[in-house]
């Protein structure tokens, strides 16, 4: 039976188990939208307010569910508006399939209306991209797109479809892609390397595990827990590794990185064997590489060969899917407790508690509400079990430092790219992907205004997300740097903000503003109890800083507490 290319696109999505897509229509993608209309009982389309919102919503969906997120846009500006979300997905290894319309094949290269070279533009920020110019290519290419997006180290794929290919008829049949001859997503596990790793771990006096999103992407949470519990090795998470282990697990020592915890950073330079699991030694984690873990033997479990020895030279590299590798490793490691080593983390935590955490969570000296205590309040009223979607900046660091997690895939944030404007649309995707979970978006007053239009999507599609804006009337993180490194010259970081509650109410979203500490508890309780979307603005202390902090280019040993 012959069908149109546009209908084939929809049937391919259904074959891949997609029942939810985010997008925005326009001229060059209209045939696909016509089919979305016809298939609306099988495939839900959420109309966003800007294509960037579609990309971030698809990311939020993917991060919270582990499935591939799908975003659709038209040619030209529709396609270019997706690019920030695609770049974000690329650097944070998020599986995404973006479908863009394109002018007809006969118009390619003619500077036609809304023609743009989205293949050229998206190449550096996609795992793969392809321009379909003939209808018959659609099933094979879309099958490849989903396979590439989700396999190996996941990432975004963009498929650009010319309008003629959407209109033309083709004979439809669908076979899922399981192999591409030039692509090896899952390196074969080398058991000798696992044995070498086990020998190093068993001989170590101060072994230290640092884990990233690889644990979540390979669904190795149980294996990580088993490894940690058998060996007694303290484990710290990267920002994208958050929630891969319960926060209150006794062997979870906290967060790495520029604004991570004191012990996990400083003790990186004290351990004798550093075991990196599914993480990529980002500069925000390592600080200065020339002084990073030089005393330690480094074991790197990683699926992407290009990450091995990229930043940190390894003693043993185990190139494999993490779940498979840890399954092989666990029987080879000795049972241990490493008590005195563990006590070093506890001592460092005590220092951080007294210097930073206590004051952040219960401010004294008549200071205004802190971001940390707001996060604590959300923990309290969500029973430590919400999906936290954070934007980028100070509030993000406070959310990542103080939010508590019981369940994996509960921390959705823009890590690698640091995309302000990420959280509001990403929260939409996370909530729609996990409708039974509470989803709380934590956003600053700056980032909120970068995709504020998505309040319209939340209203129209009735997405019951909880939105918390931590308002300090500053671009807080930049202001902090200006205070610390630019002699308090607050260049363009002062925000004169509108009445956010009125804006939320303009979209018929319940809204409340808290300015006093004594009102915070009840306000957060009311928000969390709401069955509908809810907007809470919290006026926080204006010039608080995030500490600890490793200044750019400094060593992890030189982490500052104030």
């Amino acid at each position, binding site marked *: 039976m012959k069908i149109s290319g546009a209908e084939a696109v929809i049937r391919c999505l259904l074959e891949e188990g997609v029942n939810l897509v985010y997008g925005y229509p326009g001229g060059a993608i209209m045939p696909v939208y016509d089919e979305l209309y016809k298939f609306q009982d099988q495939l839900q389309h959420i109309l966003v307010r800007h294509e960037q919102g579609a990309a971030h919503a698809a990311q939020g969906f993917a991060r919270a569910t582990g499935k591939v997120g799908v975003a659709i846009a038209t040619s030209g500006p529709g396609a270019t508006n997706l690019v920030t979300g695609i770049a974000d997905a690329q650097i944070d290894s998020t599986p995404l399939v973006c479908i863009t319309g394109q002018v007809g094949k006969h118009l390619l290269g003619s500077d036609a209306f809304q023609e743009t070279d989205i293949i050229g533009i998206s190449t550096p920020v996609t795992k793969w991209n392809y321009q379909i110019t003939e209808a018959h290519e659609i099933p094979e290419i879309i099958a490849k797109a989903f396979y*590439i997006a989700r396999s190996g180290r996941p990432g975004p794929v963009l498929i650009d479809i010319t309008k003629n290919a959407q209109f033309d008829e083709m004979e439809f049949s669908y076979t899922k892609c399981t192999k591409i*001859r*030039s692509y090896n997503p899952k390196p074969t596990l080398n058991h000798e390397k696992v044995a070498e790793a086990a020998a190093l771990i068993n001989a170590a006096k101060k072994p230290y595990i640092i884990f990233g999103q690889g644990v979540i992407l390979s669904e190795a949470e149980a294996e990580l827990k088993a490894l940690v519990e058998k060996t007694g090795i303290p484990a710290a998470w990267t920002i994208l590794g958050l929630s891969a282990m319960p926060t209150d697990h006794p062997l979870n020592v906290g967060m790495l990185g520029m604004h991570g915890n004191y012990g996990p950073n400083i003790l990186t330079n004290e351990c004798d064997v550093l075991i990196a699991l599914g993480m990529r030694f980002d500069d925000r984690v390592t600080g200065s590489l020339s002084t990073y873990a030089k005393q330690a033997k480094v074991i790197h479990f990683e699926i992407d*060969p*290009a990450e091995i020895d990229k930043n940190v030279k390894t003693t043993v590299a185990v190139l494999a899917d993490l779940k498979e590798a840890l399954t092989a490793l666990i029987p080879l490691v000795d049972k241990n407790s490493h008590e005195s080593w563990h006590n070093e983390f506890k001592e460092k935590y005590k220092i951080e508690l007294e210097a930073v955490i206590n004051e952040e969570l219960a401010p004294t000296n008549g200071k205004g509400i802190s971001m940390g205590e707001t996060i604590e309040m959300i923990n309290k009223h969500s029973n430590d079990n919400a999906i936290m979607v954070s934007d980028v900046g100070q509030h993000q660091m406070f959310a990542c430092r103080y939010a508590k997690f019981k369940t994996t895939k509960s921390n959705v944030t823009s890590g690698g790219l640091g995309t302000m404007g990420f959280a509001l649309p990403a929260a939409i995707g996370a909530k729609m992907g996990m409708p039974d979970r509470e989803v709380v978006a934590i956003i600053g007053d700056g980032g909120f205004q970068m995709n504020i239009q998505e309040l319209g999507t939340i209203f129209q599609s009735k997405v019951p997300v909880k939105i918390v804006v931590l308002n300090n009337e500053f671009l807080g993180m930049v202001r902090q740097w200006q205070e610390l490194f630019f002699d308090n010259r607050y260049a363009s970081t002062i925000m004169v903000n509108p009445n956010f509650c009125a804006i939320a109410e303009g979209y018929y979203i319940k809204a409340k503003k808290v300015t006093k500490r004594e009102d915070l508890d009840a306000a957060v309780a009311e928000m969390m109890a709401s069955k509908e979307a809810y907007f809470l603005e919290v006026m926080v202390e204006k010039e608080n800083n995030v500490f600890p902090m490793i200044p750019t280019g400094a060593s992890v040993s030189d982490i500052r507490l104030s």
Partner: protein
Amino acid sequence: MENKIFTISVYSENNVGLLNRISGIFLKRHINVLSLNVSDSEVEHVSRFIIVVKTTEKWVQNIVGQIEKQIEVIKAFYHIDEETIFLESAIFKINSALLFDERQIQNIIKESHSEIVTVSRDFFVISKSGKRTEINDLYNKLKRYGIMQFARSGRISVSKEKMEVTSLLEQLKS
């Protein structure tokens, strides 16, 4: 780490857009490509890129890792000059009158082992394959008489050692 000349070989599918994907990897790292050649390889439908760069070994490892990561790339390698047999080709277009007026030119052509490709009333064309230094040498000798046009190809090379890719490519053939 010191900068050295590296020859990067890439075996890939022959698809639209891959050149852009690969060149972007150099662009992102602000590395200038000294020469680039794309051709068929020993396996049907498999392309071979030969890219010459001057950089550190650490960077070339990083680059080769990123290239190999591209979906349509089958395998990528890097070699230093001592590990490969390599050459470039150049063609020179010269005013025909010189061939008769300047006797020395005939000697230069003969000594450089270059070939005369064509001779017409107005100009003649010679070609020369070899190392960059040999081509530069010929260029410098001819320059004083006036070169009407000059073009040099990118480097092509084969490795002295057996390429690890051979068995992989054998499988693709079957």
